[in-house]
């Protein structure tokens, strides 16, 4: 580990510490909500990117996130399970469902994979609308149980009530950091290298002995598991889940956050989600402008910075160095 790496790790540690300290400075429940939801969105965007690393764009991703939420909520409501048990079970259940959805989709690729994934995701989402029992129909599920309080002897009880903004903030922050860590390690692991190879050329990958179908499916299921994690956290935070929240519009937003941030780098979707999250807050007084501003940012990025916002430092650095050199000359 050289000096550059130490700087990077130190910077990262500083950021994480800041995130943990935010609730000490920001007390407004509204901003707590905004930030907490941003953590959920980051999980969604980063797990979406995981699928992009193997070269596909999936529109079943957001519906599967919803499925995680519904599964978790139903396990808690109908079977009386504690949130702490419902969450992992919901993740497992959604992983299995994602396997079933992606199984036929793997016969297609590119734009047609995109549409097939959307079609099957939509069928699943419409099930929530159609079957009032158990999914609650158009009105969805309400009064979803909150997580049970955490009792650690010696420490104050951590409660999750309607006013426990800080508890939820930390809960979801921790899960988000955990998810990001695992996905980062996966990206740097053998699986990530295989995914990159498949993305470059499925044909060549199979001709070096890579079982493309198997690895694509592994990646899809892992990404769906993380999406389900986000969905479950969302469900027990908002205590309300409606089918229309996971329609294709949200799918486009997640895709835009990831693409504008830059799917080439791991941190790209994080940047994208934060930028658009802030933009949305700035545009609160002008809700009609939101699609327009989003569209402009997307168009500008595709035209001038196709690798996403995350590539901005790379582009500016050589230019900045030149300027610095000229200044030094003087």
């Amino acid at each position, binding site marked *: 580990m050289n000096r550059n790496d130490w700087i990077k790790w130190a910077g990262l540690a500083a950021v994480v510490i800041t995130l943990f300290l935010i609730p000490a400075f920001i007390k407004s429940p509204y901003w707590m909500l905004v930030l907490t939801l941003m953590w959920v969105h980051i999980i969604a965007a980063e797990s979406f990117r995981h699928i992009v690393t193997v070269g596909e764009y999936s529109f079943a991703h957001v519906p599967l996130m919803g499925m995680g939420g519904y599964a978790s909520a139903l396990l808690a409501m109908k079977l009386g399970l504690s949130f702490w048990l419902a969450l992992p079970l919901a993740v497992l259940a959604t992983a299995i469902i994602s396997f079933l959805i992606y199984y036929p989709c793997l016969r297609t690729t590119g734009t047609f994979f995109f549409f097939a994934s959307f079609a099957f995701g939509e069928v699943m989402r419409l099930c929530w609308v159609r079957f009032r029992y158990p999914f609650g129909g158009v009105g969805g599920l309400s009064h979803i149980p909150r997580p049970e309080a955490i009792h650690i002897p010696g420490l104050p009880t951590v409660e999750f009530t309607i006013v426990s903004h800080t508890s939820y903030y930390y809960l979801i922050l921790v899960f988000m950091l955990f998810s990001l860590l695992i996905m980062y390690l996966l990206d740097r692991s053998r*699986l990530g290298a295989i995914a990159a190879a498949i993305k470059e050329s499925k044909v*060549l990958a199979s001709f070096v002995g*890579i079982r493309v179908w198997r690895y694509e499916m592994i990646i899809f299921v892992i990404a769906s598991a993380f999406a389900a994690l986000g969905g479950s956290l969302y469900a027990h935070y908002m205590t309300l889940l409606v089918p229309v929240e996971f329609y294709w519009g949200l799918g486009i937003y997640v895709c835009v956050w990831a693409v504008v941030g830059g799917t080439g780098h791991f941190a790209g979707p994080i940047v994208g989600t934060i930028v658009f999250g802030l933009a949305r807050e700035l545009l609160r007084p002008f809700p009609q402008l939101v699609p327009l501003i989003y569209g402009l940012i997307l168009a500008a990025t595709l035209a001038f910075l196709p690798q996403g916002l995350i590539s901005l430092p790379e582009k500016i650095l050589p230019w900045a160095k030149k300027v610095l050199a000229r200044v030094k000359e003087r």
Partner: protein
Amino acid sequence: MNAPLLEVRNLTKRFGGLTAISQLSFDLYRGEIVGLIGPNGAGKTTLFNVITGFYPPTEGKVFYKGEDITGFKPHKLVQMGIARSFQLTTLFDNLSVLQNVVMSRHLHTEVDFLGSLFHTPGNREKEKATEMRTMELLKLTGLDTQWDVLAKNLSHGYQKTLNFTITVGTDPELLMLDEPLCALNPERITAIQRLIFTVRDKGITILVIEHNMKALFPICDRIMVLDAGMKIAEGTPKEVGGNPEVIRAYLGGAIDVSDRR
């Protein structure tokens, strides 16, 4: 008695009304270098595609070491030791030369996901070992100085060499090369010819499609000639060169004689 490594029996492939290859049969023996020539559209690449599982044959069978491998998928064939290069350079464009060849070692790299996930010391050792083995391979084919160049930024000649290196990297017993010398300058051609000999000396059997007959004939033990999907001649380079059928096939159909280059 030398049993053939590869046996092709009555292989036929029809696309709708078009018959690309028809009733092809031949044997390949261990340690041979066999050339495959024929005018454009004779079905050479189709033959490769059918043998390597790109599409199933309409009729016929393929046997490898006595086992029926007809219609087996590409990754399975690579596992069994059959590797193939592509006419149009197929590379992992945005990966470096080293990463490209490391990928080709996929089947020979131990799968230890947890170790690779957490970058345990044990895993790092294995990765180092794979990288060293890969660098040896790169040194062999002359790409070691460009190990960190992205594949898409290589010159055409080196891209073809990388394609060849990837194919060899899978440790095959049977190497199928599709026009490895296409559009290369004489210096690169000699380099690849030498590589083919080196590879053969390691005991690998080679089947080569090539249009450049001047470069192909000197390195082959045998030549097969395809025309309009059928085998019209087979023999030593000398026999085939003087065969009137072969000459007629080239003069009658699309002429692609190497002297023109």
